[in-house]
């Protein structure tokens, strides 16, 4: 029997880590990721897991230790946010190249400067091109379940790539909600043991990891990595099906909320999707034909499936919680790219919202819908929600 517990997003992820019982966790505290590691350290201190925690002096060392542990054959995890992710970037980029299945929960937080501890997605968006699988979670429940999906996906023989499981900093990481927690045995059976095909502690079968690869080999290694990403897209759905059997929830590439007959849709990641759902429910109750698409799997991005979902929607607003300076916003870019093959393209509008943790309200989302339905949109212009002029 699963149980309902009042947990913050950070606690929910720590709970998932307790049930996974990884061999090694190395992390350095950074707001708002800190409680993930704090709660997990409590489990270690109380003997509830067999995990070896490695106290390190920085995030660069945290990811390096996780890489070393994972290469040795251990199931290794890390966790971070914002500046921490920025500091560990060098090793973050090396991890998928080394094909190590490290799972890292990230509590999304704005990047300095100016210094800010609250939520936006500029931290992980900065790493979107370097080969990590990225899964966004709307709430604590999704964060919890995505950890199991992420682990199995990372370690799948056709994938072997690291995975980031994102939740919105503070909004989700520190907000308490009811979370349905699975039985320990059920999770244990689902995640099983890592079982790598080769690992450095297997001293009878030595091999070299992390060699130099110059112009004559580097290119081929990167092509292999891209193949793993292509595979990840398929394997994500397969493992999602399996996870569905124990949680009762679905794990599509993106959630479609009240999209039947929608005349306008917004697309938004993570916790703001919850606010959007409330706004949509209210508008629907007054006859408004509006809907939401909430991408879950951001890397690899499901272009074709997104195109199919959007092809009959007259007008779409894409809400980004980060700016990609000098170019279209990250999520907007992907949606624009998804639509290229359509002959009759929907109208599109890009919006930036919530930078540095600024709240977004139902009223603002309703205004977006009204703007979309009025047709006053320009696909080449970036608009801002809740910004003072």
């Amino acid at each position, binding site marked *: 029997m699963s149980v309902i517990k009042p947990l913050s997003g950070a606690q929910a992820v720590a709970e998932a880590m307790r049930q996974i019982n990884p061999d090694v966790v190395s992390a350095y505290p950074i707001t708002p990721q800190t409680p993930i590691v704090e709660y997990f350290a409590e489990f270690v201190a109380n003997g509830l897991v067999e995990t070896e925690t490695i106290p390190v002096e920085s995030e660069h060392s945290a990811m390096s230790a996780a890489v070393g542990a994972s290469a040795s054959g251990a199931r290794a995890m890390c966790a971070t946010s914002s500046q921490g992710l920025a500091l560990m970037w060098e090793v973050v980029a090396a991890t998928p*190249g*080394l*094909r*190590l299945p490290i799972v890292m929960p990230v509590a999304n937080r704005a990047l300095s400067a100016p210094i800010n501890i609250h939520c936006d997605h500029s931290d992980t968006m900065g790493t979107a091109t370097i080969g990590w699988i990225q899964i966004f979670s709307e709430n604590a429940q999704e964060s919890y379940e995505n950890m199991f999906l992420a682990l199995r996906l990372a370690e799948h023989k056709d994938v*072997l790539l690291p995975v980031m499981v994102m939740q919105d900093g503070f909004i989700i990481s520190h907000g308490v909600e009811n979370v349905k927690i699975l039985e320990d045995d059920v999770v244990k059976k689902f995640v099983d043991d890592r079982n790598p095909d*080769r690992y450095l502690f297997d001293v009878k079968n*030595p*091999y*070299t*990891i*992390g*060699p130099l*690869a*110059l112009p*004559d*080999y*580097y290119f*081929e*290694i990167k*092509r*292999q*990595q891209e*193949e793993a990403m292509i595979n990840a897209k398929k394997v994500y759905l397969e493992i999602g099906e399996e996870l569905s059997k124990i949680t009762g929830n679905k794990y599509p590439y993106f959630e479609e909320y009240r999209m039947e007959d929608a005349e306008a849709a917004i697309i938004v990641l993570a916790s703001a999707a919850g606010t959007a759902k409330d706004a949509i429910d209210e508008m629907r109750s007054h006859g408004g034909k509006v809907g939401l698409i909430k991408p879950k799997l951001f890397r690899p991005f499901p272009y074709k499936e997104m195109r199919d979902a959007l092809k009959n929607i007259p007008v779409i607003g894409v809400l980004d919680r980060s700016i990609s300076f000098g170019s279209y916003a990250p999520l907007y870019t992907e949606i624009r790219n998804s639509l290229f093959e359509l002959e009759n393209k929907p109208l599109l509008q890009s919006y930036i919202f919530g930078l540095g943790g600024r709240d977004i309200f139902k009223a603002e989302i309703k205004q977006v819908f009204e703007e979309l339905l009025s047709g006053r949109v320009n696909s080449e212009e970036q608009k801002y929600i809740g910004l003072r002029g």
Partner: protein
Amino acid sequence: MANKKGWHDLMRGADLPPATSLEYKTGSWRTMRPVFDPTDCIHCMICVAYCPDMAIPIIKNEDGVTGKGGRLYKGVVRLETDFDYCKGCGICAQECPTKCITMIREEEAVESSSK
């Protein structure tokens, strides 16, 4: 490049089998190739001593080899450059007292060998 493994056949993530450094031929880095003219060589060993990659092999040869001026050079003599490791730095050509080593572009060497 054509005889190297493609991405389907390489081990995942640039992993390698153990003890393979002997198979790593760094000569592919070369853009310039030293062309050695044995008829002008006096087997002084200056190129051998200066080569930073020990890419000029030597051998003891009591029968002798014909070098500069048609003379027979006996004892330790140099052989053709080992192109598996020569990176074409040109130090041998610079230091050679008889200027019997000339540097040409690698693609010229490939072109002339395919003719």
